[in-house]
């Protein structure tokens, strides 16, 4: 069973959904700007841009569009994993997936990849114009560095998301749990609140989320503190692999619990 074939059909599924649903496509492009406008609006209302630059060292517009883009990228790819079992349950594909001989870890690893590619390309419609405006042509190079770090950030979330999703979906009404867990993840990942300024307890807690290290790497890069970036990236990858066996066990246990109750065929 080829992983490549699984990724290929997932591409068709995600791109079919994205390009055949115009509203999804438009919101997909607009979301980083909407998030940025919202955060800037709040930020300007309660503080001053100069204060932000003094504390963080980056212009708030650049910082927030990057933060929004990072959030979009990481969450778009992990959301596929978090919600997919529920989607499959409701559209009736779940029994056929469970009754198939597909390698589960390969299958769930293939799921976020197409959307990851899409959101990374989104960098060219979101951060690129803003970076060029602020940094000139050098902004293009900055975009490539940010996207490269984010690729690591998104990929390192795959096993973590599998483990999280399958643990949550063992509980009844898991969608409620997801709606609680997602905002907590968003906060702990530190995309809007610079991670290195987090209180120690939050910082330690966020260390368990692999992509939070990639987020910090991007933030440090924008602040001109590039020396620690490699360590953060290695740390993200290392932590990600800890979740691989946990993810595998979680899938097996989730499936067992489904089959024990009986996979719904309604």
């Amino acid at each position, binding site marked *: *069973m080829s992983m490549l*074939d*699984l990724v*290929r*059909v997932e591409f*068709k*599924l995600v791109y*079919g*959904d994205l390009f*055949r*649903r115009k509203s999804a496509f438009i919101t997909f492009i607009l979301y980083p700007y909407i998030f940025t406008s919202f955060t800037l609006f709040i930020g300007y209302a309660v503080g001053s841009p100069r204060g932000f630059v003094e504390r963080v060292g980056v212009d708030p517009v650049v910082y927030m569009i990057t933060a929004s883009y990072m959030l979009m990228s990481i969450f778009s790819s992990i959301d596929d994993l978090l919600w997919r079992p529920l989607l499959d349950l409701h*559209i*009736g*594909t779940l*029994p*056929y*997936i*469970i*009754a*198939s*001989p*597909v390698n589960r870890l390969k*299958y769930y690893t293939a799921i976020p990849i197409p959307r990851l590619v899409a959101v990374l390309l989104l960098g060219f419609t979101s951060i690129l114009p803003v970076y060029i405006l602020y940094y000139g042509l050098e902004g293009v190079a900055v975009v490539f560095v940010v996207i490269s770090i984010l690729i690591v950030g998104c990929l390192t979330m795959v096993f973590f998301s599998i483990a999280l999703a399958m643990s949550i979906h063992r509980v009844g009404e898991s969608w409620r749990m997801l709606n609680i867990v997602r905002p907590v993840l968003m906060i702990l990942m530190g995309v809007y609140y610079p991670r290195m300024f987090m209180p120690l307890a939050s910082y330690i807690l966020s260390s368990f989320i692999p992509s939070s290290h990639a987020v910090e790497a991007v933030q440090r890069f924008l602040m001109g503190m590039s020396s620690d970036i490699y360590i953060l990236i290695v740390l993200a990858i290392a932590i990600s692999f800890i979740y691989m066996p946990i993810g595998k066990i979680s899938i097996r246990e989730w499936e067992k619990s489904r*089959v*024990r109750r*009986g*996979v719904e*065929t*309604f």
Partner: protein
Amino acid sequence: MGLAIEAVNLVKRYRTKKRLGLFKSVTEVVEALKGVSFSVRYGEVVGLLGPNGAGKTTTIKILATLLIPDGGEARVAGYDVVEEADKVRKNIGLMLTVEKGFYGKLTGRENLEYFAALYGMDRDVARERIDYLIKLLELDKLGADTKLYEEFSLGMKARLSLARALLTDAPILLLDEPTLGLDPPSARKIRELVKDLAHRDGKAVLYTTHNMFEAELVCDRIIMINKGRIVAEGTPAELKERIPKLKVLNIAVRGNQGNLKDILNSIDSKFEVDSGEADVHNIKVYLKKPEEVLDELLKKFIGRGFEVVSIKIEEPTLEDVFIYFSGGST
């Protein structure tokens, strides 16, 4: 070749929580299967026939490794459905609810490609097989290549669902109410195909339905299930033979009514006569084996100057059989 499907004493209980208040609840146990045993051979279509809630889908789910039984054991293609689920999955084609089970924003072909990848099929082999199935089920004529699944009619959805079940050319097919809600042409197409798959290609087919007429048309053998128990099993003809209900011989003759009573009184059976217009008499004779007296009866009618207009033998239906064996309750 061994048995395709073998179920021995299958038991399944569902536990549901019934709320009695904010914090109080009681667990209710519903016994969906109460010791179901049966087998299916390769090359035959076996119908699992019963009303809603009889245990048909529960049985299919257990055999498809989608549900773990509480008791008994089941083997599919010789593999245990609990212990060797992966091997069972490689040997079955599955068709569950007709109206769901595919991705709406993909075309019929793209959906089949998706599941082919899930079943681990080689890309070229899958493409060839999908081409074949699309033609076989006439999905090409209905535009399944270009139409999105969300635009499909119920008939198209059912055909696509059957195409998926046939994707890997698995030797065993588990089909759960495959014609439910379909228009007559689509239902007929599926029924014919299922029969061909068993009789021509040697596949074992377990076919659940609550439609007695359909079961009689499609199935070589029927297992009647009610309230989690098997109530009868056999070929449609055997099942009908087993019930005491008499067959009805319907004869319409034209001629003088006066001679009619003499002829009918010579048969030792209950009869009814309904005389219509133009000297046509519709006669119903209740017999265990009407074939045995038909020849003699016709000779008598013709000998007395009657013109025979029509002859029809009404057999007890599977519905009669089901009602008889389930004690009149469903």
